[in-house]
């Protein structure tokens, strides 16, 4: 999915929609294309803009999950104030 600039046109989305839905485990019958496409285009544009954020060279290692600070916090209320 996705073109060089990461933003797909409606035509491209429609052309690839059936395959994409199959890959996502969704059946064509469950989808109202007229309602879905505007939202899908908008979400695709957001994904593309996130994709374009520069994190430097390949030498930079993505952070481990434990480094995501919010996710590293205990699930229950134990975040006491300092």
């Amino acid at each position, binding site marked *: 999915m996705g073109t060089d600039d990461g933003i797909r046109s409606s035509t491209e989305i429609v052309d690839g929609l059936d395959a994409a*839905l199959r890959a996502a485990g969704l059946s064509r019958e469950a989808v109202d294309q007229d309602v879905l496409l505007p939202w899908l285009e908008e979400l695709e544009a957001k994904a593309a803009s996130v994709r374009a954020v520069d994190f430097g060279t390949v030498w930079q290692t993505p952070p481990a999950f434990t480094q995501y600070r919010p996710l590293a916090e205990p699930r229950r209320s134990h975040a006491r104030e*300092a």
Partner: protein
Amino acid sequence: MDVTEMGLVDASRRIHAGELSPLELTHGYLDRIDVVDPHVRSFSTVAREQALAQARERTAEIAAGAWRGPLHGIPIAIKDLVATDGVETAAGSKVLEGHVPHFDAPVAFQLRAAGAVILGKAVTHEFAIDVYCPPARNPWDLDRITGGSSGGSAAAVASRLCLGAVGTDTSGSIRIPASLCGVSGLKPTFGRVNCDGVVPFSWSLDHVGPIAMTAADLALLLGGMVDDDDELFGTAHKEPPADLDGVRIGWPTSYFFDELDTRVADSVNAAVSELVRLGATVSKVDLPSAEHAIAAGDVLTFAEASLYHRRWIEERPAEYQAETLANFQAGALILAVDYLQAQRVRDRIAQEFAAAFREVDVIVAPSTPIQAMANTVTRSLDLKSRSESPLDAYGRLTYPASLAGIPAVSIPCGISEGLPVGLQLIGRHGQERRLLAVAATYQAVTDWHQTIPTAVANL
């Protein structure tokens, strides 16, 4: 005397002193709901008999000398996403219509155990997706939106239909309706309030928190939601600090003050001046990655929501509203690499906040860039220099703190052309008490939070 005219802290004190019974207070609120809620539509279920039964028990306990704490006998509403024992929890959707849990979510259980009386369930947008057709109406102008998705909770508090409410906040769903309805709303630190038993929207971003009239009320309610911080109760009963001497306010140099409605900008600027008059100092902070918050947040949110709804959107699509369904289906098509990249962007936003908080104590921003819009279906709003979808416009200033998992509160800071404006105060990880103390000091010298909404004032 109309018991619904007193605030939470005052009602709590009177109950403790034996001057007011929980049953009398509960009757007062149920009577007001009968009159006002047909206009505001903030409750999906009014659990009248359950509430009266709880109120009778709490009243008997007081008579026997047993006091559970500051929330003893306090009537509250709980968002329809939160499981409540014996009361329908439908998440605003036909998919869960008629679903009556046989257990309380931990947050509801703890509030009930702290003595709160649950009046009923507050309406939410379907599965907390803030798209079209908001069910509740804004008590300042019934033809305008409440914001979402805790719109029922905020409208109920603003309309004096309860003394506090439970909301949830994924991208701003507590702070946005609090701002648009002129009440106070706190998104606590991620994980601080247990989300078990709450229908998830996006589990890596979902927060549960309180909505109430004042910062002191928020402290009391948060104290009832967590089990690790009795000092929250004490904070609410003490006078707030008389000034803000030594408090360092951070003013974001970009993003948070872009594309604001003039009325919002004027009110927020005046509020910051008031904070300075109280003794705070202001310095600039740089949060350059905040501009990616909406894009990264929506990629995460809709991918996670889609996974939660995966079976239902395939097997029962007709039971969803069309726009909700489409969003969840679109989320299923997000690439794994995009999801992970969005997590990486999120981490950068959190790091920038952490760096800023080495220099300041609180960061200020508007809660929303515009006031409550008319309750009409539109996919695009015309702002100063660009068009923006309502979802993006309302969520763009609250999303960054959600992604960073840090606490943020919205408090009323103005009323312009008959509609409220919200000031957002963002704090350090785990420091809700400090954040609420700053808010309480501001509210001690202002009265925006005490104004009764015009559309319900005479009902």
